[in-house]
């Protein structure tokens, strides 16, 4: 049996993890492999799905499409052949570029990995920040161009007119892909994947080369923090980040932190096993370290622990 390989792309915070959950739910009668390429070398995204009871192969150290990591990606797929799967969903980091997929397929076939068939790429667009991020990150354009299914997510954050504008822009770049507009990634994925358009792609050298590399910083946060200080810290540091994620103890309770474009979400977590860490994805390169140190000392008395 041949497993169908699907790539999920989209910028950090656009809803890839939600989509993955949706897909897992939609295909719950099938055997599914998930390849998660976590950001920041921590298992935060991984942890979110781990209690769904799925086998998880984690690829650390950045994007699977990073030229240097292609090999590990292949290893992950080889590992998965043991499980005789129907579908494999590969979640890539926010800046990953799917134009490498064809060459990866080629490597797979050379390795006699004919157990896989690349079915296509699903790209999630964060409607809320589309314009900001689109101008900022060339990788998003590539993700759109090389996708077969494009999901405009978080539709509830925009007006219909704005959504039309976004759609127009996307169709201009890729008129062949299927385009849907959702909130919380809700859609009939069984049907959508059935007739996923599979066009011949232009093989492009991935632009997910160093320019678009992410600098992530992990902070160990094992103390207890006050909501006020944490909020102020996040509000100030967020301007230098694309994304902040993690678990932290706030006023005695473990909370899950999610910050996209300075929208701070702090929610009580039901997870008992969370590792207390914050991961920041820098929008200013390595200088994030200096800014973190500066803000940290401004708001907290605890020692800053960069991992």
């Amino acid at each position, binding site marked *: 049996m041949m497993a169908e390989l699907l790539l999920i792309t989209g910028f950090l915070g656009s809803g890839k993890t939600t989509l993955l959950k949706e897909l897992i739910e939609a295909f719950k009668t099938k055997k599914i492999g998930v390849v998660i390429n976590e950001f920041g070398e921590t298992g935060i995204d991984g942890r979110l799905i781990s209690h769904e009871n799925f086998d998880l192969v984690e690829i650390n150290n950045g994007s699977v499409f990073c030229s240097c990591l292609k090999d590990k990606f292949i290893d992950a797929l080889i590992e998965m052949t043991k499980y005789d799967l129907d579908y494999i969903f590969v979640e890539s980091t926010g800046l990953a570029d799917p134009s490498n997929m064809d060459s990866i397929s080629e490597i797979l076939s050379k390795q006699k990995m004919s157990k896989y068939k690349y079915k296509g790429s699903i790209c999630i667009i964060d409607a809320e920040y589309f314009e900001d991020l689109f101008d900022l990150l060339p990788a998003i354009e590539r993700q759109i161009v090389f996708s077969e299914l494009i999901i405009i997510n978080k539709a509830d954050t925009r007006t219909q007119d704005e959504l039309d504008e976004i759609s127009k822009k996307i169709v201009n770049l890729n008129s062949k892909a299927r385009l849907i507009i959702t909130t919380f990634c809700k859609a009939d994925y069984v049907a959508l994947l059935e007739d996923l358009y599979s066009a011949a792609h232009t093989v492009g050298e991935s632009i997910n080369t*160093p*320019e678009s590399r992410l*600098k992530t910083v992990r902070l160990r946060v094992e103390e207890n923090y006050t909501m006020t200080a944490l909020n102020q810290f996040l509000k100030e540091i967020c301007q230098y980040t694309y994304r902040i994620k993690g678990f932290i103890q706030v006023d005695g309770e473990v909370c899950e932190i999610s910050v996209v474009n300075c929208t701070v979400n702090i929610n009580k977590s039901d997870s008992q096993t969370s590792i207390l860490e914050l991961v920041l994805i820098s929008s200013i*390169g*390595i*200088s994030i370290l200096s800014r973190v140190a500066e803000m940290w000392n401004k708001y907290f008395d605890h*020692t800053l622990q960069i991992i």
Partner: protein
Amino acid sequence: MGKDLIIKVMNHETIDRVPWVPFAGVHAGKLKGFTAKEVLTDGQKLYESLLEVNKLYKPDGMPVVFDLQIEAEILGCDLLWAEDAPPSVNSHPLKDTKEIPCKCKIPEAKQGRIPMVLDVMKKLSAEIGNETALYGLICGPFTLASHLRGNSIFKDMIKDAKYVKELVEFCAEVNIKMAEYYIDAGMDVIAIVDPLVSQVSSKHFHNILADSFESVFSYIRSKGKFSSFFVCGDATNQMEEMCLTKPDNISIDENVDIVKAKETTDKYNIVISGNIPLTTVMLHGNQQDNMKYVVDLLDSITKDNLILSPGCDMPYDVPIENTIGAAMAVINTAETREMVANYQAVEEDIEVDLPDYDHLKKPLVEAFTLDSATCAACTYMWGAAQFAKEHFKDEIDIVEYKYTTKENIARCKKMGVTNLPSLYINGKLKWKSIIPSEDELFEEIKKNMN
């Protein structure tokens, strides 16, 4: 003492005397008779040499290895090795291709010479880490970038600053990784050594390089360790911008006027280190020159936020007695000031009677020392003589001449003793600076018995 002094000065506390950090890189090998290449590639030899540095030079802090090519070698640069100097980078992997290396190229702890270095660091930290502050030295991000890119990097700075900034950021990530390894291996101070910084304008430093340096120093601070920024060359105009990257310490060489530079570093409450001239004083001067230079320097500068050190990596062939003299001058400035003054004042008019060396009844072992109470090497030299006395008892005579009196200075002049400590047997120079082993000493004494 020792390490305590370094910690205190870095924390800007008041201390009794200025700390002393001799940068004995390849020069450490000279103390044990090993070549530069040997100490930079053979962990055991490096370890033995560093123990000797700790013993002879009585440092408060010392570098473990001074080689700015360790990272470059792993990143694909060819090295040109020398017997008496650190290697040089001989090829530049990014010379013809303007790329940023993949993050996967950031050196791992098992690559290149890193395992050797980490091993020595751990051993040294266990052995002398309580008494002496240990410095882990890392090739700074700009110099490392130039190793990778070659001289084109200077053109790039004007034509494609963005590329240089990104390449330097990559190198800063290498720095951070190296700092992590070195801190885990027990280093107290992480020094980012970037000689090339003096070769670009402060504007270029500010626009292209500063962020990377500041990030590295922030990281080191977050690990609870001290950071040091080493520069070589005339970095006078870059001092202010260097301070703004917030290292705990800046180290300069003789091309910068340390008294003036200290006004700047003091403004930012940063400790300054420097700056005994490497060639004119340390390599080509004599012991007197070194003692005088240090005394004069200490007399011309405020003592807080200050570490006395050579300008940069000491040349391999620096005469050992020169460093001993410099050490003595830092550790006991008052006494050394006296010695220097006396040396200049003493004329031949002080009558000194030399023994009739040709007609001695039994071997005469004479130790000429700066002061065996405060100069470590002198202590060992005089100790060797005393040990021989215990062994040979009445069969030999021993005597110590401390450089602290005018009579003894006159004696040294008359004898032609130029290096302290020295050990003479029957009026002949046998050992200078390097302490003889028991076997060597006994054999030499026996040769002089009738």
